[in-house]
């Protein structure tokens, strides 16, 4: 190994123009390396679009098939928590974007602050999500595990929701399909939350690295690409929120 680096070092002095230590040897310029990495990150995000795309398509089709069940299932969600979580996630996207700017400007402590804020807001999002999940558990609305049709066969028994929506009782066959709504609810928000957990894990690593000054040397690729991932997760939520929480409010 030391031999190899010595040779690489020697050729560099002879032939190549000088380049920063973080430029990979097979790239001609930093610009080329940045373009290639950016392209690769977007290709990964495309696979993510298609991954969530399958869930969105399933939601679209089942919502059309079992419309009344999906409407009443949706009435069980709290618009308050959903809105608050949307605001939290958008704010975390903003702090992440500011983090990228700080890295570009080589502001080390500001970058650490932005990353920590993003990390904390990510945790707040998951905290609120777990409050919502807990409520589903309490009300026996966890498909396959702990499910009860009372809220849909006899909506008046579910006081809080009934006061808001005055839903009519669903026939048994349709009421059973509310389980499908909650299945998709948990699958979509759960996969989204998993992406958040992975993101928070990477953020932990990044905060340590940023403190050591790893991203404020002019090489911002890692922060930038993580930013793309984080914003992507934000976009998924931007669509989940209206589809799961909002659009069924007036549908009866």
């Amino acid at each position: 190994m030391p031999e190899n680096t010595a040779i690489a070092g020697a050729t560099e002095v002879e032939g190549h123009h000088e380049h920063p230590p973080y430029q990979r040897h097979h790239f001609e310029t930093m610009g080329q390396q940045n373009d290639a990495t950016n392209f690769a990150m977007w290709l990964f995000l495309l696979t993510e679009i298609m991954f969530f795309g399958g869930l969105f398509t399933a939601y679209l089709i089942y919502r059309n098939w079992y419309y009344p069940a999906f409407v009443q299932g949706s009435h069980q969600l709290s618009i308050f928590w959903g809105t608050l979580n949307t605001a939290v996630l958008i704010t975390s996207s903003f702090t992440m974007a500011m983090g990228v700017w700080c890295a570009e400007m080589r502001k080390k402590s500001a970058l650490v602050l932005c990353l920590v804020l993003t990390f904390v807001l990510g945790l707040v999002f998951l905290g609120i999500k777990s409050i919502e999940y807990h409520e589903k558990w309490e009300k026996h609305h966890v498909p396959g595990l702990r499910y009860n049709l009372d809220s849909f066969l006899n909506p008046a028994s579910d006081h809080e929701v009934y006061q808001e929506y005055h839903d009519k009782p669903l026939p048994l066959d349709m009421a059973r399909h509310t389980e499908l709504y909650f299945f998709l609810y948990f699958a979509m928000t759960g996969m989204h939350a998993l992406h958040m957990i992975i993101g928070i894990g990477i953020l932990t690593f990044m905060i340590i690295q940023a403190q050591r000054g790893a991203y404020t040397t002019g090489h911002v690729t890692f922060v930038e690409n993580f930013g793309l991932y984080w914003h992507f997760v934000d976009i998924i939520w931007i669509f989940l929120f209206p589809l799961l929480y909002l659009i069924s409010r007036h549908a009866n």
Partner: protein
Amino acid sequence: MSNHAETEHHIVSPKLYVVIFLSLLCLTGLTVAASYVEMYSFNVVVALGIAIVKAMLVVLFFMHVKYSSKLTKLTVFSGLFTFMVLIFMTLADYISRAWGRW
């Protein structure tokens, strides 16, 4: 490769980030408010329309696509296009299976 046009690294200013952030919050408020107004089938259209505008703001500015290379723009577009194929081909199948038997 020397004639390969590399993108100049454009740094988006914090001011613009703040503007986008505030617009996203406003649009969130708007979409919640709109859901409380009875618009029949237009509730879905309005909610998804606002979501698309929000997503576009995030993609163009937070994700820097507005300032990115043509390659990146094409990549993003092809992703959306493939997603649209997924949606429309699937729907075309479901709609036409029971054709005339609704």
